[in-house]
């Protein structure tokens, strides 16, 4: 009996095994035989759709999908006889090797006309090299590593900022508000997470601050994911910077913001956060609104774009984003949307999905209106390295519970009045 059962189990095991192997082999080889029949133009987007950056990746994906739906609904690519746009995605898992493999797949299997992505600089850097080798245009979405557009590549174009722009913009905003009001902080403090991002940002802040005549009185790195900021806040209390620049991701930023509120620590010219946690829609659900009152937030997106734009496509994208994701259009959704519209614009002008013609059309891009500017730029035009020289972030201030753009001045909606210097805790309502 037991012997019989054992034998049967063995037979089942081998059946299962052969079955699994056959299935595996079939799907593996089928994937190579698969070819795209193409009355449509296919573009590919490599994004971190699983793993640590999955939330960002899926927001970007939603943006790209919204753009494709809108374009197809409005008649596709008109210069190509109304060809429909189709977007396929590759999951990089935030890993360089997987991003490269997915790029290979999209280029050689899906025959994409152009690529976009890939948020993580670590993925975008090697993956764009693959695109360059295959002479397939790549529109960079999200990745900020300077060198991506410093390699004399012909097929790589970046819509958004380089990494070092962020710090300059924060200091620019302080300059602008000081000039407008005649009230200028003399001292700055900077606290940041002790990672590549935090430390390079702090270094850039110190460089720009000394050039513009601010003295940095506090320079404090904190290890990521700590549970208490009392130590750092004590240092803020003793060095008394007049404006405080912070760089933390969501979990740290939550604790820091709560403790700043609990301790009623006054920083006369406000807290200037360089995105990270304060870019994350989830962050605002987890802090009491008072804790983030008067915060300045620098991000690669104009947070109140829907209040200033009249573009129906951007407004609709915001609505669709709420339906799909549960929150309004974010920086990442807007970047996905913008990337697809930039490719669409080039396709229209090229009149062809030929990669070389498309590349030339992208190089000649000069967009001054439309949904491609959903992130808040005035213009998209690439230099010979493929960098959009008109890229800039936007800095918002949280005024009366609403995040309103205050920098650059041309993005500021009429009637928005920055609060500068910010009210002390005791002057704020309901305190």
């Amino acid at each position, binding site marked *: 009996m037991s012997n019989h059962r054992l034998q049967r189990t063995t037979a089942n095991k081998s059946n299962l095994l052969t079955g699994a192997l056959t299935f*595996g082999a079939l799907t*593996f080889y089928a*994937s190579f035989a698969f070819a795209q029949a193409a009355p449509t133009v296919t573009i590919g987007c490599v994004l971190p*759709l699983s793993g640590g950056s999955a939330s960002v990746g899926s927001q970007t994906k939603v943006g790209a999908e919204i753009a494709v739906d809108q374009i197809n609904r409005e008649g596709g690519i008109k210069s190509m006889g109304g060809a429909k746009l189709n977007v396929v995605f590759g*999951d990089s898992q935030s890993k360089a090797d997987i991003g490269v493999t997915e790029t290979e797949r999209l280029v*050689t299997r899906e025959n994409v006309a152009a690529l976009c992505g890939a948020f993580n600089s670590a993925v975008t*850097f*090697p993956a764009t*090299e693959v695109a360059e080798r295959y002479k397939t245009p790549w529109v960079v979405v999200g990745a900020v590593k300077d060198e991506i557009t410093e390699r004399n590549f012909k097929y790589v174009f970046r819509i958004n900022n380089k990494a070092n722009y962020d710090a300059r913009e924060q200091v620019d905003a302080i300059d602008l508000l000081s000039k407008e009001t005649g009230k200028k902080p003399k001292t700055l403090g900077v606290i940041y997470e002790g990672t590549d991002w935090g430390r390079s940002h702090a270094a850039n802040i110190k460089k720009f601050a000394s050039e513009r005549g601010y003295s940095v009185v506090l320079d404090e790195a904190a290890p990521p994911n700590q549970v208490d900021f009392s130590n750092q806040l004590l240092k803020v209390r003793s060095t008394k910077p007049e404006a405080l620049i912070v760089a933390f991701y969501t979990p740290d930023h939550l604790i820091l913001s709560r403790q700043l509120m609990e301790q009623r620590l006054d920083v006369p010219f406000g807290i200037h956060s360089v995105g990270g946690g304060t870019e994350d829609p989830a962050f605002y659900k987890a802090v009491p609104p008072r804790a983030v009152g008067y915060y300045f937030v620098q991000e690669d997106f104009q947070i109140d774009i829907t209040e200033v734009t009249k573009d129906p496509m951007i407004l609709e994208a915001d609505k669709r984003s709420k339906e799909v994701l549960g929150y309004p259009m974010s920086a990442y959704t807007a970047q996905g949307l913008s990337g697809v519209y930039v490719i669409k614009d080039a396709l229209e002008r090229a009149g062809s999905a030929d990669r070389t013609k498309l590349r030339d059309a992208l190089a000649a891009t000069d967009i001054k209106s439309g949904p491609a500017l959903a992130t808040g730029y005035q213009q998209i035009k690439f230099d010979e390295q493929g960098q959009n020289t008109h890229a800039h972030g936007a800095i918002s201030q949280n005024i009366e519970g609403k995040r309103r753009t205050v920098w650059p001045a041309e993005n500021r909606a009429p009637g928005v009045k920055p609060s500068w210097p910010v009210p002390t805790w005791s002057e704020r309502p309901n305190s």
Partner: protein
Amino acid sequence: MTVSTIPLDRTAPVGFSKGPALALIVLLLAAGLPLVTQDSFFIHSAIMVLFFAYMATAWNFLCGYVGQLSLGHAMFSGMGGYVSVLLFTTFGLSPWLGMIVGGLAAAALSVVIGYPTFRLKGPYFTLTTIAFAEIVRIWVENTDTFLGFHIKGAEGLVVPMVGESFAAFQFGGKIPYYYIILGMLALAILATLIMERSKLGYCLKAIRGDRDAAEALGISPTRYTLTAFAISAFMTALGGSFYAQFFRYINPERNMGTELSIDMALMSIIGGQGTAFGPLIGALILTPLAEVTRGYLGGTFLGLHLVIYGIVLMLAVLYFPKGVLEPLKNLAVGLFRRRNPA
């Protein structure tokens, strides 16, 4: 007859007589692949399979035979990658030599780490390897410059393109990389086969079987496990160098991270640890599985490909706890017997 009756120690005559012949056939088939297809994506995927097979083989050299689970091998991979890239970018030293230097450095590190930790058994050893690897990774992520070398912290290192050059380990197409990693894998499997039959192999298996009994017989566990650890670390570092040269970009998160360590261990365990060909089988199953499911599902059903991968892992561990190689071998033997009833 059934899996459960196979003894733990597998120096079975099947492996002994047919192993090298089988290896030769597989090697020849693999070497002929680029003659059949030049397709870039296919070759790229094949390189990834061979790379993971190589890394798993390097892991297996120690862990499969000593029976200790290391989840920190990625630190050696990272070390190999970083040393070879830094020597190339700073002194222009050919990565071929740089990877040997990186390998030796990793071997030295393994001895430093191994000496205190091999006294630990089971989960304590595993936890220590994770801790060491994480310390190394976090240190690199937070260090810009070390001894005058620009490590660049979490940003990672870029290998500058110098054009096609054998000395610089840079080739136009993917086929040279394919043959390099195929050669590395063949050497690693050969090293494992030789080790299995050497005094080192027998001693390791004795230690795996019963450490105290082995010690009572005069086998020094520390000495033999350290030797195997150093060789394993050396081989892992060469793999890390290959990765760095192939992708021309490395960063601590990917090249020293826990995920890579886990992948190396998983492929060995699924394929069959403590066997020369198990890691290869593991990589042959898991890498294409990950690739195909990601290709079909990764872009549409977010995360589903990882769920499927996880289910396959669970099934494999449940039904083939000694790895897939063993039942495959039984299946082959069964078919052979059915055709030639003796």
